[in-house]
């Protein structure tokens, strides 16, 4: 409430100053109103953490002169927030914080926004996917898990967040590459999948590092391999006398998945000017330099990797291609 009034006051002041002394037109653009950060998740999830990390990095370092408000539009796997961004074409004061769901979900269902109408701003970091198993299971290597799955088709239960989203796709990929069949059980999100694995209700899950960390520390779950070309960065001991770098890559463990990662992305409404886009790209470039961002990345086991402009566009196309192929094999594509 307060920040709104303040924002209005500032914009009023700006208008007055423009009216009183006509300034030369600026080549650069800067926000004129309060900023809205749309978290496409419910409060508390990974996307929420991502949104707030950037908000605190911007606020504590004064990177943007306007107030920033975070709103949650997480219904229907975050579709709600993306529809909202789609409906606000031309508004440079709204940013949506998301993952690859932006281009993945529309492949399977009609969700009310066209991803080509949104402006991709940046991919900020990659969240790794790790294959975790319950600590009480007889297998503690990828080989053991796959062997067990081969002996008992559909007998191994893999928990994950949502259906036909990243966890499900990753599970499909494991099945395809290892030539086994498992049973995928969709839960509301990674947090729920973490609890179900710790409680032994499923045998394995494909959570991001941060999602299962507490359970790893409690000795309830064990990481088998990370689907990344190289091992994760060594940030010291995190759990059970081990660091993130002690988890082998899936290739090292004999599972032929070189890389499956999940980008943390920022999207904006369509119809922005080049100056507006450049402004926000600049802000994000500064964000990844801040201490707040470094802490966030380290605590969450993320790999910081800023991609903007053509880099990001190319990445989306690649990722969409992989999704398209897996969805087609699974018979999930729209209209099937």
């Amino acid at each position, binding site marked *: 409430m307060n920040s709104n009034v303040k924002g209005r006051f500032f914009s009023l002041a700006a208008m007055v100053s423009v009216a009183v002394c006509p300034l030369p037109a600026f080549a650069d653009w800067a926000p004129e109103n309060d900023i809205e950060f749309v978290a496409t998740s*419910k*409060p*508390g*999830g990974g996307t*929420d*953490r991502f949104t*707030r990390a950037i*908000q*605190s990095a911007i*606020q*504590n370092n004064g990177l943007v002169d306007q107030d*920033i408000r*975070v709103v*949650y*539009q997480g*219904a*229907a*796997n975050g*579709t*709600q927030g993306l*529809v*909202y961004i789609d409906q606000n074409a031309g508004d440079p004061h709204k940013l949506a914080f998301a993952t690859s769901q932006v281009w993945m979900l529309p492949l*399977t*269902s*009609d*969700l*009310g926004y066209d991803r080509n109408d949104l402006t991709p701003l940046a991919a900020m970091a990659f969240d790794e996917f790790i294959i975790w198993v319950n600590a009480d299971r007889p297998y503690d290597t990828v080989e053991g898990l796959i062997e067990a799955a081969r002996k008992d088709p*559909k007998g191994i*239960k893999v928990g994950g967040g*949502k*259906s*036909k*989203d990243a966890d*499900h796709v990753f599970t499909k990929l494991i099945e395809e590459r290892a030539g086994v069949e498992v*049973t*995928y*059980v*969709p*839960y*509301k999100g990674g*947090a*729920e999948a*973490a*609890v*179900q694995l*710790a*409680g*032994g*209700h*499923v045998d394995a899950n494909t959570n991001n590092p*941060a999602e299962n*960390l*507490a*359970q790893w*520390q*409690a000795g*309830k779950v064990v990481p088998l391999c990370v689907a990344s070309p190289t091992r994760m960065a060594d940030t010291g001991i995190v759990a059970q006398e081990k660091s993130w770098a002690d988890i082998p890559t899936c290739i090292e463990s004999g599972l032929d998945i070189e890389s499956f990662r999940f980008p943390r992305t920022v999207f904006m409404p369509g119809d922005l000017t080049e100056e507006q886009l450049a402004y926000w790209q600049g802000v994000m470039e500064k964000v990844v330099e801040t201490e707040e961002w470094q802490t966030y990345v380290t*605590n*969450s086991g993320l790999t910081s990797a800023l991609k903007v402009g053509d880099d990001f566009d190319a990445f989306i196309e690649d990722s969409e291609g992989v999704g398209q192929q897996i969805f087609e094999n699974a018979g*999930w594509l729209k209209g099937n």
Partner: protein
Amino acid sequence: MDFFIDQLGLLSDGFSVALSLQNMLFLLFGVGIGILVGVLPGLGAANGVAILLPLTFGLEPVTAMIMLTATYWGALLGGSITSILFNIPGEPAALPTTFDGHPMALQGKASEAMALAFSSSAVGAMIGTLLLTFAASWIADFGLRFGAPEYFAIYLLAFASFIGMGGPDPIKTLISIMVGLGLSTIGLDTVSGDVRMTFGLLDLVKGISFMLVVIGMIGIGELLITMESNLELRGVAARMDPRVVLRTIISLPRYWVALIRSAAVGCWMGVLPGSGATIASMMSYGFARRFSANREAFGKGAREGVVSPEAADHAAATSAMLPTLTLGIPGSGTAAVLLGGLLMWGLQPGPMLFVSQPDFVWGLVGSMYLGNLTAVVVVLLSAPLFAAILRIPFAYIGPVILVICMIGAFAITMSLFDIYMTLIFGLLGYLFKKLDYPIAPLVLALILGDQAEESFRQSMILSGGGIGIFWESTLSKVLMTCAALALLGPALIKNRALITSHLRNRG
């Protein structure tokens, strides 16, 4: 014994952290904001805490957590004020408080109802916090035993313990439940990932929030009924009389059975991830009605009907902190936001947190005792302010309530479509009341429906389609038996005379 002394030692260290001037000031501030957030329908504790979170980035983590949790306690209390005075739950968990709290207010016993609500909240919160103090490691493990079949059994038990609450006509209750279940299927389905029942309306993809239904059917429905009855808000003489308040608080031990039962339900639901305060208060109201000697009084201003949901609600909210801190598993939506905050400050929840950050953990636990008591005192002192509202003529207050309802409906997802939906549900609520259909079963079905469906289908995936999975673990056996008893028990008892006489005739 040593264990208790150790815990008490840690707790007293915690109190010394919590009792610093700075922490107490932030605690008071949090309580104040919380009550305000709680009073506005639609703006729940989770949203309130989420909005405040960025303001706390510059604070010490323990101070920030103390302020945010205080907001939580304040919001829960604020939610009961509007439930009792206006029949609009300001907070989802306060819904069952409307069933008997509002009738009490209509009978001119508003101050008694509020005093009852606040003091039983305090008892619930104390019990929840005691549990957090002494049973951290054991309880956290218990939560892990719940898989999909056990969850389904819990939801079934919630439904079973609630059925028949709408009054004398079971067919109308059943119809109301069915409408609720139907509404709960709208939107994106978690298990299949498909969009269902939206009729091509994109605004429906996100589903129908039960708060919309509550604000519309109960809030606006009530306004329409009031308008019909000569524009008088049926609440008179609602002064907060200190003597009444004191007398009510002194009379509280009389409800010890209800208090303990509700606190137990609350702690149980709080510790279980994903259930939380709303289900706790609903279930506890259902139990209170079931076990009460004078069941007839429920819905007409029964004191136990106020005591039970309030005690359960607060016990659930406080004990939800337990799995949040010990396992990093939030026991409620608001706890999930707090968990997000912890991670932002670089604190990794889990069993190690108690070892590596004792000042933080025990400062927080200490503040939970102080915060809940402070919140009750503040809300008792500020309640006359809200009670005074009842003395304003309805012609003024009615439109204000409508505006608050609309703001609440808009605040949930900031969509204009939701406002239209709320108005439609308002008309539906009016119809339900006119035709004597109960609204509560519909709301319950809407809240639990999709979770019950989801856990049922997850169980089916896990078992490969076999229904026997619900009878596998001891836990689900116990829960399923309880559900069957709750469902069939009353009918058996009611017809016992009939059955025994029938048997005697045959024998």
